[in-house]
Structure formats: C-alpha cells, structure tokens
C-alpha cells in the first residue's frame, strides 16, 4: 500500500502540475522535500544519540528487563507473539509513557529501540511482523494526556480557557487508539503471511 500511495502522490502531482502550469514549483518542491527529509534526520541525530545512550545505561543497570517483567502481564495481550520476559516490553512501556506525557523527542528513540528489539524476533528482516504493526498502530494513534503544543498556541492567540481542549483531546485520542487496536487485531487475524517461527531467521539471512 505504501508503494501505491507513494507512486500515486507523485504521478498525480505531476499531472496537476501540468494542468495548473506549476511544473517549476513542483520540481522545486521535489528537491525541497528531499532537503526537509535530510534536515529532519539531522535533527533526529542528537535526540537519538542522547536517548540511546541513556537507554543503554538503563539496560545495563537491569532497569529495562525489570520494567519489562513488571508490565509484560498488562501489555502481553497486545503482543501475543513476543516472549513474556523479552526486553522489548520495557522499551514499549517507556515509549508509551513518553507519548502519554507528550515527550515527543523521547518517545521516538524509545519506539525505535522497541522496534529494534522486535526486529530481533523477525524471521523476515524486511517485512514487518504483527507485533511491529501493533506498536506502530499505538504510536500513530498516540494517546496524549496533555496536548502541550496546542495549549501553548491557543494561549498565544488569547484564549480565555486554553486548557479546555484537554478533555476533548483525551476523548478523541482514546477513540482513535481503540480504533487502531481493533483494526490491528482484525488485520492480524485475517493476515495470511506465515506466523513467527524461530529458526527461520537463519535461512533468510543466509540468502
């Protein structure tokens, strides 16, 4: 689906550019977009370097596995194919907590770290596993307790009650997350790709 959306966006863009006479703008936008992509990644470097460093300290202190054991019973239902005391659970929890608290720049490194742990269980390194899809679903819906950015912007424009969107945001985000989990479940159950098999990893890597 990503392939089609990507191709579709570019084909439609060029078609519209031809009709609207915006060929020049679209050409510039293509390279501008490429530059944005690199700029965003450069911005991610410092964040990733810092948090992955701190997370290694937490890992070596045994905090991550402790956390994983603590929350596994709660989160297991969402990730049935991840072994009970796998460190991935520790990172999944820190990722979810960072999302809840609106710590966007901490949430991404934790989420990536969780993905890396899930990737270790993946027999097919270039194809997402169901557990990865679930983690992604939770992150795209991102439950947030306080939408700090939006509160700040409303405050800037003179809102009398800038925080009154907290309730509506929380309700909407709960509904969205519920929908994400339900849809993920549904797709997971009707997905026909072979389930996880230990030992298969060796074959695919060799090829």
């Amino acid at each position, binding site marked *: 689906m990503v392939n089609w959306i990507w191709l579709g*966006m*570019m084909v*439609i*863009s060029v*078609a*519209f*550019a031809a009709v*609207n006479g*915006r060929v020049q703008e*679209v050409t510039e*936008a*293509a390279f501008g*977009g*490429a530059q*944005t*992509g*690199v700029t965003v*990644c*450069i911005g991610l470097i410092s964040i*990733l*370097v*810092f*948090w992955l*460093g701190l997370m*290694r*300290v937490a*890992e070596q202190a045994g905090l991550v596995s402790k956390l994983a054991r603590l929350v596994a019973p709660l989160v297991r239902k969402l990730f049935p194919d991840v072994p009970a005391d796998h460190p991935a659970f520790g990172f999944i929890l820190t990722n979810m907590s960072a999302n809840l*608290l609106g*710590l966007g720049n*901490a949430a991404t*490194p934790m989420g*990536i770290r969780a993905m890396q742990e899930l990737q270790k269980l993946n027999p097919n*390194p*270039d*194809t*997402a596993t169901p557990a990865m*899809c679930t983690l*992604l*679903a939770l*992150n*795209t819906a991102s439950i947030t*307790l*306080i939408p700090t950015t*939006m509160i700040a*912007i*409303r405050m800037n424009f003179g*809102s009398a009650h*800038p*925080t*009154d969107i907290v309730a509506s*945001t929380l309700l*909407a985000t709960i*509904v*969205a997350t519920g*929908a*994400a989990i339900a*849809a*993920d479940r549904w*797709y997971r159950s009707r*997905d026909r790709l072979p389930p996880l098999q230990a030992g298969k990893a060796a074959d695919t890597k060799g090829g």
Partner: protein
Amino acid sequence: MIAFLHQVSAWAVPMMIVLIPLYAAFRKVPVYESFVDGAKEGFGTAVGIIPHLVGMMTAISMFRASGAMDALVQAVRPLFEKFGVPGDVLPLGLLRPITGAGSLAYATDLIKTHGADSLAARIAATIQGSTDTTLYVLTVYFGAVGIRNARYALKVGLFSDAVGFFAAVAVCLLLF
C-alpha cells in the same frame, strides 16, 4: 489535575537523566562508558532513516506544491459543511496523517483567523492533539530497522486517523 500533569511532564526528563545513571552507578555499571557505547548507535540509526524520509517527503512536498492537495480538499468540502462542520477544518483532517509541520501550520492559522475560542479552533486543536503524523511515524519507525514491507500497518494508521478526526469533530460539537 492538569497543573499536576504539567508538572509531571516537566519533571519526567530531568528525573530520568538523574535517576537512571544513579541507579546504574549503584549497580556498579560504568555509567559514562555505557552511555557513550549506546549513544554510538544513534548516529547510524538516524542516518539509516534518511532514504526513507527523503522518499516520503519528496512525494508529499510535490503533492502540496502541485495544487493536488487543494483540489482534494475542495472536492470533499461540501460534504462536510452539510453536517455542520466548519469547512475550514476539513483540510486539517487530510493534512494531519501526511505532514506534521504542515498540519501544525494549518491548525495555527485556523486558530488565528477564527479566534482561539471558536469552535473551529477547538476542533483543530483537538485533531492536532489527538493523532500523530501516520506517514512520518511509519517511515521513521520502520525505516530505523530497515523494514520495507509495512504490510497492513498503513491501513491501520490511516483508519485510526479517520476515526480520530470524526471523534474529534463529534466530541467538540457535543462539548462546546
């Protein structure tokens, strides 16, 4: 309650920066060496995301510059106004999953032009706060571990964005 949560948010990071290394030192972990060792991987991970993000950003940027995005918005607008939803809010629903910076700019503009306490501003803030940029999250998270086949993940993300959008509109119509 909200003030308390704000405090928790503000203190969470400094507490982690202090408590994790403290606990680790207590457990006899060479904290600085361990930090540097883990941090090394950050660079490679960030660089690994570049091709994925460049590909996605190029397409998105072209889509917006060509006027295709505007055409899409104009096409669906009348449908929404029928249901009493301010038509200006709609583009945000379409922008939100595609571009984080673009949707933030659009939401800010809505708040500015309609007034911070208008219905449109509240809906915009709720939409912006309650979902994340699906395409970006997918590109970064899967890109970081080299996943090329995302399977059904994008469908799930876009579906939850759509549900989140309608939920935000409905909740705001009910509450405000």
